[in-house]
C-alpha cells in the first residue's frame, strides 16, 4: 500500500466507522511517518465525533414558532395548498428546438451582414454598362452666354451619364494649359469635384436628366424582387451625392474667383 492508497482507504474506513479494525492501514502507518501523523489525527477526530453531543434547543422553541405565526387559540394563517413545483417539462421540450432556432437565426444574421457589407459594385463592369460623362447638346443661346466662363465651369453641371455608346468626352472638358499654374486648393477642389462627379455618374441611371436644384427625377421603375430596399437606399443617397457635388462646384468657382 502506498501513501495515496492509504489516504483514500483512511477516508473510506472513517466513513464506515471501523477505522481501528483496518489492520493494513495500521501496518502502513507504522512504517510511514507522514501517514502515521494522518492516522493519529483521524483517530483523534473519530474520538471527537463520537463525543459529539446532539444539541437540543430550548424546550419552548415550538411554542415560540407557533406564537410568532398567530395568536394562541386561533388557527394559523393558511398558506397555499400543496402544489407541485413548476414543471420543467416545457423547457426540456423546447430545448433542442430552441437551439436549432438560435443556430438558424445566427446564420441568417451572418448572411444578412455579409450581404449588406458586400462590395457595392464590381470594379470591372462590361463596357456597355459603364456610364461615362458626355456633354449634352447645349442650346446656342445658353452656349453664347457661357462663353465668358471657364470651360470647366461651363460643363461641370452638365455632365450626364450614358451607357458608353459615345466615346468619353469628359476628359475633353479638362484641358491642361493655363489651369496648371493655379493655386493648390483649386486643383484639390477640381479633383474632388471630378471624383464626386464620377461617383454620381455611377449612381445615376444612364437616362437620368442632369441634376438641378428643386428638380425631381422622373419616376424610376420600381425595383423587383426582395432586394428592392437596396435600391430604395441608393435612391435616398442620390440627393446627398448631388448636394456634395454642388458644394464642390461652389468651391471650384470660389477658387476661380480668387484666382482672378
Amino acid at each position, binding site marked *: 500500500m502506498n501513501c495515496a492508497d492509504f489516504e483514500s482507504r483512511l477516508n473510506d474506513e472513517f466513513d464506515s466507522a471501523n477505522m481501528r479494525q483496518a489492520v493494513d492501514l495500521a501496518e502502513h502507518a507504522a512504517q510511514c511517518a507522514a501517514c502515521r501523523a494522518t492516522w493519529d*489525527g483521524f483517530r483523534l477526530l473519530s474520538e471527537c465525533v463520537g463525543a459529539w453531543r446532539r444539541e437540543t434547543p430550548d424546550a419552548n422553541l415550538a411554542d415560540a414558532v407557533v406564537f410568532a405565526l398567530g395568536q394562541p387559540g386561533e388557527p394559523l*394563517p393558511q398558506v397555499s395548498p400543496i402544489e407541485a413545483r413548476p414543471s420543467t417539462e416545457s423547457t426540456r421540450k423546447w430545448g433542442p428546438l430552441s437551439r436549432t432556432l438560435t443556430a438558424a437565426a445566427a446564420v441568417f444574421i451572418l448572411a444578412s451582414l455579409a450581404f449588406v457589407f458586400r462590395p457595392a459594385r464590381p470594379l470591372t463592369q462590361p463596357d456597355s454598362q459603364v456610364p461615362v460623362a458626355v456633354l449634352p447638346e447645349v442650346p446656342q443661346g445658353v452656349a453664347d452666354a457661357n462663353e465668358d466662363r471657364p470651360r470647366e465651369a461651363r460643363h461641370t453641371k452638365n455632365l450626364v451619364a450614358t451607357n458608353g455608346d459615345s466615346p468619353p468626352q469628359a476628359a475633353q472638358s479638362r484641358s491642361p494649359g493655363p489651369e496648371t499654374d493655379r493655386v493648390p486648393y483649386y486643383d484639390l477642389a477640381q479633383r474632388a469635384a471630378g471624383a464626386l462627379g464620377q461617383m454620381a455618374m455611377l449612381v445615376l441611371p444612364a437616362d437620368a436628366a442632369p441634376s438641378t436644384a428643386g428638380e425631381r427625377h422622373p419616376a424610376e421603375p420600381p425595383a423587383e424582387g426582395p432586394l428592392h430596399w437596396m435600391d430604395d437606399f441608393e435612391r435616398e443617397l442620390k440627393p446627398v451625392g448631388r448636394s456634395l457635388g454642388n458644394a464642390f462646384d461652389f468651391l471650384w468657382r470660389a477658387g476661380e474667383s480668387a484666382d482672378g
Partner: protein
Amino acid sequence: MVLRGLEVSVSDEGELVRGCLTGNADAFRAFVQRFQSAVFGLCFRMLSHREDAEDVAQEVFLRAYRSLGQWDSARPLKPWLLTIAANRCRTWLLSRKRRDLPAEFAENVADPSAGSTRLDLAEELQLALDGIREEYRLCFVLYHLNELNLADIATIVGSPEGTVKTWLRRARQELAEHLQRRSILPQVTHELR
C-alpha cells in the same frame, strides 16, 4: 427518504404538512418538534452560538411554514428543511462578518490561542469547526451530525456530489490537523454516546 440506512416514511410527512396547511396549530407544533433537533443542531454547529442558533432555527421554521405550499411532496422533507437552514446560516454568518462581534459572543466561543484551556472533545471539535471554511463545515456537519448521504448534501449545498466528497475529505484533514496541533489526547475521559 433514506438517511444512511434509516428509512423514514414520506407519507407521514405528507400528512403532517397537510395538517399544517389547514392552519392547524397543533400540527405545526408537531412539525417543529419533529425536526427541531436536526435544524437546531445544524444551526448550532454552523454558528457556534446557542442564542443565534435558536433565532435562526425559529426563522427557519417560520420560512418553512410560509413555503410549505411549494414543497414537493414526492421528496423528503428533512433535506428541504435543512436547505432552508443552511441558507439562513450562511446569511447569518455573512451579516455577522459585516458587523462587529458582540461581547456575549466572544464569551461564548473559546479562544483558540488559549492552549492551556482544557475542553472536552466535543468542544474541541466545535472549536476546530470554527476554523475551517463554511462549505467544509456544512458538509461535515450534514454528514456526521445529520447523517445525510452525499446526494442529499449535494442538493442542499447546491454543488456536485464529487465536490461534496472532496470538501468532506478536506474538512476531515483540516480538522485532524487542528486537533493534533491542539495536542488533544484521545484517551481524555469523556462519555461516548
